[in-house]
Each structure stands twice: as structure tokens, then as C-alpha cells.
């Protein structure tokens, strides 16, 4: 999503998702006009739509969740879970892994009418099926079935119930199903309620474009930021060096200003490390004018931020005395200027940032201060390596910035292999490092149109300093993984090509079976790793993701009906033979499978131990 791009919604609804004979859907047109939606369904109804929306609030794709899409008298309409999931995947999984904007939110209807379209039901509403008793019962709403399936396959996808059925009938069920809210579309203020739900729960990029990217870890972090804006409590921002913590602080500030409806709220940044013990008092609290000494009054930084946000960067470096002083301000909510007696009430939100785990006792940061600084929550800014999908767009932005500074006579482009090189780098210095690399490449090669990999000076990764953020990193690089996989695959193919399956060649076989099995297991392990990576649940706290064996196995096998138990059994069978070698995600998956199915016996293709007699 580029700056100012519209939120992208998917509406799953039998009435608004269908297409009437003749191609139109007047109900959908009314809905789009009422909510100021741009119909982006790219179906016959959207093409035939006469709704004109000048200032759209969202771009919406409609999905019926039933088959057929168009029904006339005599047609039978049935719910279609798979078709709905296919539509969801198109806008979620593919976007997540290809770098496009994912669904901001899914709006889910509850009651889907099924059955035959009769003359009577058609008279009620064109193409309306007569309905079955279970369609309109809260315990069997198809919307709740869909919700359950969506939450299992896409746990991070925000879903909101969008129905004109009574909320109270399903409030427990939709909470259990993982929906984040309920908007009654027949409520007169439904458009405003929906706007608020999208703000709090939707996944969408920074509309101002200051923080660039659509990757899921980033969108989750931005959502945390917007949620934190709702209450106005102090927020702690954490993230590795160079991830853009100050940009996130500015985002939190803008979000709060939007909520307050006041874009003149001050934002005062300060680096906590720059104040010595002598200066901090006057800088933070200000100075009262003294007629006798001729000292002029000076407003301190806290007072400057009154009614707005004070951003304390690098709080881990804050001297002990300053910590004590800030703690007093947070406790008392009052300050007194140096040399003054008058107490001034403080109405300031404190945003603080650090790349250090301040909970560590050996760092000596005051726990009581830390608690107050994160009273309104912690927002984690993901490292760049967890935001691979954002790298090409960031690279392009930095190119334009570098050119804007006169660092090149030509307009530069990144070639595909340069982008690949950028994607493969681990970026220990994160976005700041990427910016430096691009700026340096442009400065050193101002007269070329294309930046090729040899133009990039990519630093070798350094070990992380003690106490700094150490997110769960992959145990080996992607390049190593790819090499290892090709080696395993190549080994398997070579072995197969050299193998004769003639009974006379049994002696040639001897000793190769184990090699073949090892190659096969390693190949399987590589494929599993890829599936885990593609289906990981990513949160702001775990930007590298949490392994989910069930969705991974479903993806790998292509069997949507695979149960969680079957998935666990498969993991045990596939990884059991190489259990001793497992590490990282594979180890996590294997242990999860063992926990889920501790007793189930799994048939493993192990050779019989030598000397053991075969049973009857």
C-alpha cells in the first residue's frame, strides 16, 4: 500500500456478494454508496454498478461464499466454504509473501440463506433462496463456520462480524471464533462504527507514508501503535538499532493527534543520553527567572511537550539521577522549574525507545520507572530481516532520496539481482543500514542507470552486543538453506540415477539405502522448513514467527481436510528418523507434534535392526 492508499476490505455476504441475472446487484450498490466504498470485486456486478463514490473510504471486494454466484428460479444455492477460503488466500497469503497489501479486514455476514430459489422466494427478492431452518439459527450460522475456518488458517487476519442480526445472540461465539468486533450494518451510525473498527483492528500501512511497507510484522506493529493511541498512556517502543523507533514514535504521536482531533499537539524528542547530571534539571524542567541574578526564564522540555508527546530516545543510557527525576514527574504529574517554587501540572504522554532489554537486572534500570513508561503497552518495531517484502520499496525510496540530495546525475534503478542481494543480506543495522548502503552506492556510482550487486557494500554481520535485542534468528541463512537443499536433492537424484533396480544388482545396492534415506529426510526437512516459513504466525513480539504445524502440513500436502492430529503424526513420521539432528523451527515443530500426540504410534520406514528375526 502506498501513502494514502485505501484500506482493502473483503466482504463475505450472500446478499451483497451475489450477482443477479442481468449482471447487477442493486443492494451492493446501495451498500457501497452508504459506506462510501469502491467496489473492486472485478465481477459483473461491480462492472455494471452505477454507484458513484467521490471520496471512497475503502476498496472492497465482495465474495458470496455460496455457489452459484447467480441464481434464478429452480436453482439450488449452497454454502461454499472452499470458495470463500480461496478468495481469502488470494488477498492474504499471496500478498504477504509477494509484498502487496493484504486484506485490511474481513467483514463477515452471519446468516447465509440456502436452498432452492422458488417462485415465492424469488418474489420476496430476486434470486433469493427459500432458506433452511438451520440457516437462521445462531448455533448454525454459516458465518460462524467461516469464522472458525478463517481463524484456523489465517490467525492474524482481522475479522469483524458485519450483520444485521442481533449481536447478543452470537457475542460469545464470535469472541471464541476470533472475530475482533461486531458492526450492526442496520445501525444508523454503522459507517462510523466500521471506520472505528478498521482503525483499531485493521491492518493497513502508514497513510502518510513516513513508515514505508506492507509486510505483516510492520502492519501488526502499526496496529499496536494505533491501539495505543486510543488511551493516551505512556508507551515503550522497542526494536533493534536502525529499525526506525523514532519514526514509530512520530507515528504514535500522529495517531494520538488524529484520535484527539488536534494536529497541533507538540512532539518533543530528546536523547536521554545527552544530559549530564548537571544539565538535565534545567533542560527538562526549565528555569525560573531571577531578577537579582539576571537569569532569564526558560521553558523546559517537559513544559514544551505540554498537551502532547515527549519522546525519550535511548532510555537505557539515561543517568540514574535523571531516572529518579523522571520517575518523580510520572508519579506526581507535576514539575517545578529550577529556582522556582510554583508547581506546574504536567499533561504529557511519555514515549520512550530502547534497543535494550531493560528488564535485565544487571543493567540497573529502575523497574518502577520502566513500569510507568510502558503503562500503555510496548510496541515492537520489527527488524528489517523480518520485513523482506518491504526491502525493494525501501530501496527505491532511498534511491530517490539520494538522487534528491544531488548524489547522482542519472536516475537509478535496482536490478533484479541487486534486489535479490538486498533480500539475502541479514541487515544487522536494519533500515538505517539499508539507507546507508543505497546512499553510498549512488554516491560512488552517480553516472550509471542501474545499480548492480557489485555496487553494494554490504557489511558482514557482527555479533550482537550483550543486552541488545536478540530476536529468535534463523539458525542459518537462507542462502545456506538453499545450498543445503540443493545438495540434498542433488544427492538423492545422483543416488537414484546410479541405482539399478534389477534383483541381480542387490549387491550394488548394499550400503546405499541409508544414504538414500538420509537424503530423502533432509529433502523433506527442507520442504517442511519452507512450509513452516510460509505459514508462520507472526506477531509484533515474535516478528520471526511461531511455527504452526497444522497449516504448514495442509499447505505442503494440499489437503484442506487434514486434521491437526494427522498433521502431528506426519511431522513425527517425517522428522522422527532425523530427530537427533533437528534444530530451530524443525526442532520446535517436532516437539509440538510430540506434545500433541505423545502416545500415538507412527509407522516409520526404519530398516529392521541387524539380527532381528522377522515375526510370523
Amino acid at each position, binding site marked *: 500500500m502506498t501513502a494514502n492508499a485505501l484500506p482493502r476490505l473483503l466482504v463475505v455476504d450472500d446478499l451483497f456478494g451475489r450477482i443477479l441475472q442481468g449482471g447487477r446487484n442493486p443492494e451492493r450498490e446501495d451498500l457501497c454508496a*452508504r459506506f462510501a466504498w469502491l467496489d473492486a470485486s472485478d465481477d459483473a456486478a461491480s462492472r455494471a454498478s452505477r454507484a458513484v463514490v467521490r471520496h471512497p473510504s475503502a476498496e472492497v471486494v465482495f465474495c458470496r461464499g455460496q455457489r452459484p454466484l447467480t441464481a434464478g428460479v429452480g436453482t439450488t444455492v449452497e454454502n461454499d466454504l472452499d470458495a470463500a477460503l480461496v478468495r481469502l488466500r488470494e488477498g492474504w497469503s499471496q500478498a504477504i509473501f509477494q509484498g502487496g497489501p493484504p486484506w485490511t479486514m474481513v467483514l463477515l455476514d452471519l446468516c447465509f440463506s440456502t436452498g432452492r430459489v422458488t417462485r415465492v422466494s424469488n418474489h*420476496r*427478492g430476486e434470486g433469493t433462496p427459500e432458506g433452511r431452518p438451520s440457516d437462521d439459527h445462531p448455533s448454525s450460522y454459516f458465518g460462524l463456520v467461516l469464522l472458525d475456518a478463517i481463524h484456523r488458517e489465517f490467525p492474524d487476519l482481522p475479522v469483524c462480524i458485519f450483520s444485521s442480526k442481533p449481536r447478543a445472540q452470537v457475542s460469545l461465539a464470535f469472541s471464541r471464533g476470533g472475530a475482533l468486533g461486531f458492526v450492526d450494518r*442496520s445501525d444508523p451510525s454503522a459507517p462510523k462504527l466500521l471506520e472505528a473498527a478498521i482503525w483499531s483492528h485493521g491492518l493497513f500501512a502508514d497513510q502518510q507514508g513516513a513508515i514505508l511497507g506492507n509486510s505483516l510484522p510492520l502492519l501488526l506493529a502499526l496496529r499496536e501503535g494505533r491501539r495505543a493511541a486510543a488511551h493516551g498512556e505512556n508507551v515503550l517502543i522497542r526494536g533493534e538499532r536502525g529499525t526506525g523507533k523514532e519514526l514509530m514514535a512520530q507515528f504514535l504521536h500522529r495517531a494520538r493527534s488524529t484520535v484527539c482531533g488536534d494536529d497541533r499537539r507538540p512532539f518533543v524528542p530528546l536523547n536521554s543520553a545527552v544530559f549530564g547530571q548537571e544539565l538535565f534539571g534545567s533542560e527538562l524542567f526549565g528555569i525560573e527567572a531571577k531578577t537579582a541574578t539576571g537569569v532569564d526564564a526558560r521553558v523546559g522540555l517537559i513544559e514544551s511537550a505540554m498537551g502532547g508527546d515527549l519522546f525519550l530516545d535511548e532510555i537505557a543510557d539515561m543517568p540514574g539521577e535523571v531516572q529518579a527525576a523522571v520517575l518523580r514527574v510520572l508519579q506526581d504529574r507535576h514539575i517545578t522549574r529550577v529556582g522556582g517554587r510554583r508547581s506546574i501540572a504536567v499533561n504529557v504522554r511519555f514515549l520512550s525507545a530502547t534497543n535494550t532489554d531493560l528488564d535485565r537486572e544487571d543493567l540497573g534500570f529502575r523497574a518502577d520507572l520502566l513500569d510507568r513508561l510502558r503503562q500503555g503497552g510496548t510496541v515492537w518495531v520489527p527488524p528489517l530481516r523480518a520485513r523482506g517484502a518491504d526491502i525493494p520499496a525501501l530501496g527505491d525510496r532511498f534511491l530517490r532520496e539520494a538522487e534528491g540530495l544531488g548524489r547522482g546525475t542519472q536516475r537509478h534503478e535496482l536490478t533484479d539481482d541487486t534486489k535479490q542481494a538486498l533480500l539475502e543480506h541479514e541487515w544487522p543495522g536494519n533500515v538505517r543500514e539499508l539507507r546507508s548502503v543505497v546512499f553510498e552506492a549512488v554516491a560512488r556510482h552517480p553516472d550509471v542507470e542501474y545499480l548492480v550487486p557489485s555496487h553494494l557494500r554490504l557489511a558482514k554481520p557482527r555479533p550482537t552486543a550483550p543486552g541488545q535485542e536478540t530476536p529468535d534468528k534463523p539458525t542459518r541463512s537462507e542462502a545456506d538453506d538453499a545450498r543445503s537443499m540443493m545438495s540434498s536433492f542433488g544427492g538423492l537424484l545422483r543416488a537414484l540415477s546410479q541405482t539399478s533396480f534389477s534383483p541381480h544388482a542387490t549387491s550394488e545396492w548394499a550400503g546405499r539405502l541409508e544414504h538414500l534415506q538420509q537424503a530423502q529426510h533432509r529433502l523433506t526437512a527442507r520442504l517442511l522448513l519452507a512450509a513452516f516459513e510460509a505459514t508462520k504466525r507472526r506477531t509484533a513480539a515474535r516478528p520471526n514467527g511461531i511455527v504452526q504445524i497444522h497449516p504448514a502440513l495442509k499447505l505442503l500436502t494440499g489437503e484442506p481436510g487434514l486434521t491437526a492430529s494427522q498433521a502431528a503424526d506426519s511431522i513425527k513420521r517425517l522428522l522422527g528418523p532425523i530427530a537427533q539432528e533437528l534444530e530451530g523451527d524443525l526442532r520446535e515443530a517436532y516437539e509440538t507434534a510430540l506434545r500433541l500426540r505423545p502416545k500415538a504410534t507412527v509407522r516409520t520406514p526404519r530398516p529392521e535392526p541387524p539380527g532381528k528375526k522377522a515375526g510370523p
Partner: protein
Amino acid sequence: MRTWAIRRARLSHDLVGNRLIQSLGAFERALQEGVIDAGDVYQALSEQLHRVEKQWRQIRREGQALSLTYVSEMTPTALFNEPPLCYCSTATRNWLSPLVEARWRANAQPEVRAAELRQRLTAVGSAITMLARQVRSRNLTEALRLVGEAREATSRLGKALSLFSDRVLL
């Protein structure tokens, strides 16, 4: 679920909630934001009004029918003509049926509900008639005020429909 209750649910959900409220909302936004190009404004509004009036006629017909048949269709006395209550002895039926009927009338207040529904229908009808008059006389400022009233009246109609109980004993 009895037929009357199914018809009531459809009226409330399909016709009022999903159609008329959305149509009026679209109409209101069209008037508020001037989203329709000036050249086509009256024709577009007339088309939208035609849709609102068509939906309204269907709702009025069904709403009036439901208000008139609520007692006869939903009275628990009718349950004694169907299994399993039809198996009650005559003696049991003689004391149980009036008791259940009295309880239902006390809890569901059928006459009050039906009268309220008719009142709400009248209110929506008046609002839409006035709205149509203003649109046809091209007084869009007044139409904007009236479309809000029509939407509010329709919302109250939806609430009145939701107050009908599908249960015999609460």
C-alpha cells in the same frame, strides 16, 4: 420455528436491515456529499427514490400482514392442536391452554406489539411520502432532512420488529 416467526425474521433482516436501511443510507450520502454529477442529479435521485419506494411497499404489505396475524398465528392455544400437546387429555387441555395463553399475553403483550408495529409502519410511510414529495419538487435541502427522518423511523421499525417474541414462555 413457526411460519410467522420466519416471516418476521425475514422482514426484519432481509427487507428492513439489508435493503431499506442501506437504500436510505445511500440516498442520504448522495444528498450529503453531492456524489451524483449535477447534470444527472434528479434522474439519479429519482431512480434511488423509486428503489426506496418499491422496497417500502413490500415492507408495508408484509408488516401489515404480520401485525394482523400475530395473535392468530403465534397464540400458544394453537400449539394444542399439534403434537405433542394435542395428546393432552381434555381435562388437562381445559386448564393448561388458558393458563399458557394468559401467560403468553402477559409476557408478549401481543396487542401492544402489533399496535406499535402498525404505528412504526405509519411513521416510516409518512416520512417516505414526504421525502418523495420534496425530491419530486426538487427541494433537496428539505429532502436531506427528511431522508434522515425516514432512516431513523426505519431503524425504529426494525427495533419494533425485534421486540416480538418467538417464544411462548419467557
